[in-house]
């Protein structure tokens, strides 16, 4: 038995993040809010988190995501890049996103 074959994924500009199969983003009509469902936990992402999660489709690279988000928020790419990569690393570590 070894865990050598399993290493922690680290976010890069080339990563193409995708939501894990056990995580599901869905609109809750009772509370009128977006929920991210996962084993044992329900997350209530804020608007910025939602915009990032919606781009986690396995097609957009992190670099493309940053560019799109910078446009959307009329912000500087260099300024938002650490927030986006930090978020993705955290959500990868929480097993909600595959990098």
């Amino acid at each position: 038995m070894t865990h050598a074959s399993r290493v922690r994924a680290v976010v890069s500009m080339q990563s193409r993040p995708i939501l894990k199969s056990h995580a599901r983003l869905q609109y809750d009509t009772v509370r009128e809010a977006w929920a991210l469902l996962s084993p044992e936990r329900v997350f209530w992402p804020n608007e910025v988190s939602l915009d990032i999660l919606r781009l986690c489709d396995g097609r957009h690279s992190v670099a493309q995501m940053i560019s799109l988000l910078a446009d959307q928020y009329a912000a500087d790419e260099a300024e938002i890049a650490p927030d986006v990569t930090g978020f993705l690393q955290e959500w990868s570590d929480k097993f909600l996103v595959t990098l």
Partner: protein
Amino acid sequence: MNEPVLPPIGMLAELTHRCPLQCAYCSNPVELLKANREMDTAGWLSLFEQAADLGVLQVHLSGGEPTLRADLGELIACLARRGVYTNLITAGVGIADGRIEAWADAGLDHIQLSFQGAFAATTEKIGNSRGAHEKKLETARRVRAAGLPLTINAPIHRHNMEEVPDFIELALSLGAERLEIANVQYAGWALLNRKALMPEREAVERQVQIVEEAQERLRGIMTIDFVTPDYFAIYPKPCMGGWARDAFMVAPDGTVLPCHAAGTIKSLHFERFGDWSLSRIWHESSAFNAFRGTSWMQEPCRRCERQEIDWGGCRCQAMAIAGDAAATDPACIKSPLHARMGALINEAISTKTADTTPDAFTYRRIGRVTEPMV
């Protein structure tokens, strides 16, 4: 109760009390229900529809052993149709070929598989079931092959605490995303077997170190959720996230309870689904309103700055140890009865035999109705 009652998020559905294992640490009530008391398929389907309407987002399908219900696929399909996240909590022994794949096709989101030991001998001894370990390993492989995410659940007590490092290796080798190292909670059969299950303080301290080190080392590789043992705690857990605050459970016969041990609080009356709608039970049941919010609290909870962190802790533990369900959970250092937790640990350890085999277990069986002596 001035605050509005918000809709529940989670529901634990104990579909049956039948189980192929006989684990002495089981938190099911000592008075187990036989198959003929179980709610039928139509009853569960109707309950799940009402749960989704009410705002439930997650259902944990448990028991007993939920896979003994032949209608499990139908129940999963109903929940999946309503967008409810489904988590199957199974012992993973004796699941017929093709069923796991069928549940995945029906929309099952996740499987939680229990291991009583990291090694075959321990698993067999704790569950009193020959060959159980190999069957569980096979179930884990089939879960992965079906593409379903997997959590390994390891209920921890005196007889397997030293295997915690091996549980971590086992979960990694099985490709689990998540491992729960869950120190047993003394409710139901576990309360009956408390003396035989209680670990020693030094072993608990070693365990905490091992788990914290592994959580750090395996960050991003495998999530380890650690349920610490109440009797060794300083502050209580926010049991169920607060009584009737965002979760509830349903017993095999459709009785709806704020938590799975709430039946031990004999002053409470619980409604059955069917007699009342789920919405009415959630909002109006006297049992649900008994300890909701903070207005029921006594000292020291009443003026405690942690009252909305731990919500007074576990009502059933207060009942079991303080003899008063409205008392502060004795796990809390601020409880006047906190010293009793230490005394119960010492009492269990001092009566322990040199032999570490769990001869003193009262194995979980349907039909035994002995009430635990506290």
